[in-house]
């Protein structure tokens, strides 16, 4: 609960300061509270405070902790002394002043310089601030009063009053008590002094007196220098801790972040290397999608991609499995692949992939890198095991870690702050530890390592140092513009060689690329592409309908050197044989030793429906079935006999007949019964919807703010008019849950109590029950 004081302080902030507050703590305004009191209340809530504290660096957090330990408002002078004592080197200013400014901006500290206090809720969230235990009053709260009385008698003989208070008073100056204990007991205290303040001892709640204490732990328990907090746990009361620390709240505090250490890199070289890797990564994603579009892997029953499919992808891309997992995950995060198709589902490239593919390499990279930066999925976890020891698969839902994007951004931020430096892993971790001490833990360490190695793979960093385009990506600049000049420029020529290879010394222009992909096989990829022509590959080009002359012409035009004789020979040689054997489909044939008779049949007008084709002087092929052919020819006055597959004459049978052709596949267009009217409406609505979409995207309100209501007959006649005139109308409609909604429709047809119309608000054709239409209004 926010105190009045705090609320007033908030109220006294200037608009600029409040803007700073809400932009630094955006969770305070989601949703926007009704008033400043609400804002103050929310700022004091434990979750909001915890999130704000998580953002603090080591030093600023230390300032908060110092105030938290003090319990009461402190002046800036006092604070300066305390913080200054804790610093390992240098003085507390100017770091302290700027930390205080920051804390005020965040509303974690408020009040004037002579009475600084923590915002409400902050102390509660910080348990064990700076590794100090609870105050004695808190620590001994649950002890039985009798035991406390006995303890007070021991540590403060001759005092009067409740044991709890006497004990607390004695512990507020614990020097004499600490001096009494044995060296072993002192050692135990020193272990707990700098936190964590809790330890485990068996039977912590035992009752001991100073006189009867036998072990070091008992000495401490009897004097209240340790307080039992459970059956087997003890804690060091804060007063004792502070005494042991010599009054300092922290030790070896640093006012500035630890310096980054690592190897220096030439910035241009690092940038180039990163760009090269960026190019490689984009190609890897493209290759993956191309492969998956023809041979998609299945979706596992549990979701995700099978281990074998991952191995296969790694093999095909010629990368280690973790890189393959990264490629797959980034492609997924960028919306380039998704589950779909098939009965059980398959991982397929999306339509987004087709849009992505036509963009420039630099733009494609930005799309991938941004997706990677912001995804909460952790590709690095692929192949590890979850809590139940099941392997984590790529594309599986369990790969999500909420803190991943934050850690990634923070890690890259560290790198971006040190251009031209490839900091060591330890040094990055140490920096992150200083920058966000409250987020430490094995997960962050793991995520940081993933982020570092993945950034290198993606080409955000090169040789371990941040690249210019990586920095632009991180800071919201134009990363594509920074990257583009470093990427190889498309070339419009290849080098043809007599060993039937062609080398494209860079990425090819799209037209040439298509030609090469069609007529040659890729042998090696990278900055350049090596192609090999073979009989099969040349035949592929010919199969695609290109002539030998055309192919050689294209090659000659785009070759920096003359076309080698071997290559032109290969192409003409394949062309010579190409298509010499023709294969087609026919369901029956007519053969006759007398070509004149076949001439007669083909000339016969009645034979047109049989769709006969002359294959040779004595053979006709037909697309009708054998039985139909025999019947038709008989009807035309000829006397055909049917032949079996082996050429034997078949005796005609009058009983059951079977079709000999394959069952026709039902045409999808007629099966769906797409009404021409609906189709027309859809096209018109598409045009109109396009315009409306650009104008507004919110659901449409009723023209007068209410749902229109009219007699049913009026509704129907209005809709009929609209159908006739082909105009859009606005309707009120009760959906299947009974909610009143409003739609903009292009009505197509009305029958059987339903209206079929193109729903512009949903961008689809729907059927609407007439009785649920509450009203119609023209637009």
């Amino acid at each position, binding site marked *: 609960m926010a105190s009045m004081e705090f609320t007033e302080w908030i109220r006294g902030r200037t608009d600029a300061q409040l803007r700073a507050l809400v932009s630094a703590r955006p969770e305070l305004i989601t949703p926007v509270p009704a008033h400043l009191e609400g804002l103050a209340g929310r700022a004091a809530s434990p979750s909001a405070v915890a999130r704000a504290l998580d953002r603090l660096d080591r030093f600023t957090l230390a300032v908060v902790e110092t105030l938290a330990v003090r319990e009461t408002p402190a002046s800036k002078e006092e604070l300066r002394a305390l913080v200054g004592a804790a610093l390992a080197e240098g003085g507390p200013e100017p770091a302290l002043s700027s930390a205080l400014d920051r804390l005020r901006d965040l509303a974690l500290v408020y009040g004037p310089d002579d009475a600084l206090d923590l915002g409400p809720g902050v102390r509660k969230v910080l348990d064990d601030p700076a590794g100090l235990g609870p105050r004695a009053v808190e620590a001994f709260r649950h002890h039985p009063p009798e035991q406390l009385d006995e303890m007070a008698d021991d540590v403060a003989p001759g005092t009067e009053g409740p044991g709890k208070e006497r004990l607390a008073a004695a512990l507020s100056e614990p020097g004499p008590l600490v001096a009494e204990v044995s060296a072993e007991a002192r050692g135990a205290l020193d272990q707990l002094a700098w936190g964590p303040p809790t330890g485990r001892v068996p039977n912590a709640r035992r009752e001991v007196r100073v006189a009867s204490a036998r072990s070091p732990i008992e000495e401490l328990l009897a004097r209240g220098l340790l307080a039992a907090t459970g059956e087997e746990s003890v804690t060091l009361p804060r007063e004792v801790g502070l005494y042991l620390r010599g009054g300092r709240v922290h030790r070896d505090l640093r006012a500035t972040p630890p310096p980054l250490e690592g190897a220096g890199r030439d910035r*241009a*070289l690092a*940038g*180039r*290397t*990163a*760009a*090269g*890797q960026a*190019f*490689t990564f984009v190609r890897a994603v493209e290759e993956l999608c191309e492969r998956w579009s023809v041979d998609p892997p299945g979706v596992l029953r549990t979701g995700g991609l099978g281990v074998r499919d991952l191995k296969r992808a790694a093999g095909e891309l*010629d*990368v280690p499995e973790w*890189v393959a997992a990264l490629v797959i995950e980034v492609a997924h995060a960028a919306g380039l692949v998704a589950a779909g198709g098939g009965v059980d589902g398959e991982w397929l490239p999306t339509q987004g992939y087709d849009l992505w593919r036509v963009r420039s390499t630099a733009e494609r990279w930005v799309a991938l890198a941004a997706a990677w930066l912001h995804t909460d999925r952790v590709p690095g976890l692929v192949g590890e095991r979850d809590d139940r020891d099941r392997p984590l698969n790529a594309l599986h839902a369990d790969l999500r870690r909420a803190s991943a994007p934050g850690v990634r951004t923070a890690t890259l931020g560290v790198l971006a702050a040190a251009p031209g430096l490839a900091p060591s892993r330890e040094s990055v971790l140490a920096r992150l530890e200083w920058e966000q001490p409250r987020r430490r833990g094995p997960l962050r360490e793991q995520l940081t390592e993933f982020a570092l190695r993945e950034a*290198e*793979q993606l*080409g955000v960093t*090169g*040789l371990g140092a941040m690249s210019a385009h990586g920095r632009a990506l991180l800071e919201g600049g134009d990363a594509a513009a920074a990257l583009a*000049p*470093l*990427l*190889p*420029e498309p070339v419009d020529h290849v*080098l*043809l*060689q*007599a*060993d*039937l*290879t062609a*080398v494209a*010394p*860079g990425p090819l222009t799209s037209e040439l690329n298509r030609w090469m992909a069609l007529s040659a096989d890729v042998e*090696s*990829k*990278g*900055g*350049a592409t*090596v192609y090999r022509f073979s009989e099969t590959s040349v035949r592929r080009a010919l199969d695609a309908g290109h002539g030998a002359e055309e192919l050689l012409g294209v090659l000659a035009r785009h070759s*920096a*050197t003359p076309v*080698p*004789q*071997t290559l032109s*020979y290969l192409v003409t040689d394949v062309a010579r*044989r190409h298509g010499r054997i023709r294969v087609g489909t026919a369901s029956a044939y007519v053969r006759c030793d007398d070509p004149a008779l076949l001439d007669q049949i083909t000339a016969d007008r009645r034979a047109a429906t049989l769709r006969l084709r002359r294959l040779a002087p004595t053979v006709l092929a037909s697309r009708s079935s054998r039985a139909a052919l025999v019947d038709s020819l008989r009807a035309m006055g000829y006397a055909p006999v049917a032949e079996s597959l082996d050429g034997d004459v078949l005796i005609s049978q009058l009983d059951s007949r079977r079709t000999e052709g394959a069952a026709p596949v039902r045409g999808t267009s007629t099966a769906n019964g797409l009404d021409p009217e609906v189709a027309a409406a859809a096209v018109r609505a598409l045009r109109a919807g396009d315009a409306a979409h650009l104008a507004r995207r919110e659901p449409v309100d009723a023209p007068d703010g209410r749902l229109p209501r009219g007699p049913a007959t009026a509704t129907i006649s209005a809709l009929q008019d609209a159908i006739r005139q082909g105009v859009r109308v606005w309707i009120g409609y009760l959906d299947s849950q009974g909610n009143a909604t409003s739609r903009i429709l292009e009505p197509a047809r009305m029958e059987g109590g339903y209206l079929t119309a193109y729903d512009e608000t949903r961008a689809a054709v729907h059927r609407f029950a007439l009785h649920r239409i509450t009203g119609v209004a023209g637009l």
Partner: protein
Amino acid sequence: MSVNDGPLIVQSDKTLLLEVDHEKAGECRKAIAPFAELERAPEHVHTYRVTPLALWNARAAGHDAEQVVDALISFSRYPVPHALLVDVAETMARYGRLRLEKDPVHGLVLTSTDRAVLEEVLRSRKIQPMLGERLGPDSVIVHPSDRGNVKQALLKLGWPAEDLAGYVDGERHPIDLLQDGWALRPYQQEAADAFWNGGSGVVVLPCGAGKTIVGAAAMAHARATTLILVTNTVSAHQWKTELIKRTSLTEDEIGEYSGSKKEIRPVTIATYQVMTTRRKGVYSHLELFDARDWGLIVYDEVHLLPAPIFRMTADLQARRRIGLTATLVREDGREGDVFSLIGPKRYDAPWKEMENQGWIAPADCVEVRVTLTDEERLAYAMAESEERYRFCATTPSKTYVTEALVRRHLGEQVLVIGQYIDQLDELGEHLNAPVIKGDTRIKERERLFQAFRDKELQVLVVSKVANFSIDLPEASVAIQVSGTFGSRQEEAQRLGRVLRPKSDGGGARFYTIVSRDTVDQEFAAHRQRFLAEQGYAYQIVDADDVLGGV
């Protein structure tokens, strides 16, 4: 800064593409040659491959990862994939973690600078039996007889050992090069020096580039008794003649150890065949290896080294070894064994470059395609699959084309090479030329070769016995009518027959006659790949053009 204007493109599959017309191409080739194998050298873009073997070769030659990375980055036109750089560094770091050393007390020991690697290796079941007592955390005894096997096994595990155990000097024997009227060519000198400095290894030079002389130069370095292993008797004779001519060795000092003679002299030339002869399942001539304290072993045509010789070589790791070959391509893919048992590649030079410098004759390669007649096509279609190649390779049409070609090259020295004896006999008859085949006596062979050399004979028909090591200096035209299926190295060897520099400085011609639309054509394509990759462009012509005399 935009992309570099370098001559090199680094591919993600670890191939390097070098644009040869680029002004920095020569410089770049020098920089990358130590750590990348030249894979293909067609006319415009040469392909090198960075393989672990090549990187370890580079380490063995004293290059470090930084130099490699630097060469890649400074010559590369586009940014170098980071993964590749990391991989280079990691691979190179694997070499030398394990070392074979000579310990004054314990003899041969395997030591390690990285205990984890040694532990990993020791756990390998393959290696355990070859190792003796563990001497300490970082070293273990190796049975001296397993020196080669250990190296072979370690290479397979990906932890190649650096062999610092040194060599025995062998029995001294004075050998000098007699450079009277001829001189060691610069590349021959370089090759011999590179070998000697490396200790052991392989020299790759094109046919006709004088590999025998490199062998002789290596012997002059070693100045010790030498065992030379060659492919066959004729080639043994040629080695002998050549050594007498080029070195201070006299006829009495050189022995021949073959099927017919069993001489053991300070320099002994033995054939692979006799070494691999078994009697009652035992190699009966193994004692040759121990007959003398050999200071050097020369392996001629290393790419043909038969498997038993590999096994024998494993026991000879304390002796210096030099391998000579035109190509490291082995049809059986045992290049790794050559690396670990004979030694890393110490020298190689692209064929075309040698040609440009005039050390080997320029050659035109022509593939002549004959069309089977209709009856032949029918017969071919019906032939059993194992008979098909023989059928289409020996079609009579080839005989006519051969005749036409011989006519065309009247006055030049022509070799006709084939696989099938019937076909060769028929050709011999048609061309009125002698035929040399497996059952031709050695004496007769040498008489014919001499006559051919003296230009008394203009046309010679030979079977595959002449594939290797037969010095026919003035053959300027070779016509290949059939071959051992798709063997790439055979094709290279056969071309080598005509590559010796000609006295008139003229070029050579190499014809391959191939039946169109048959397996013959497929095999031919496969055979030609190696040469095409070495920069020999095949021209394809139709048989009709040849017969028509165009």
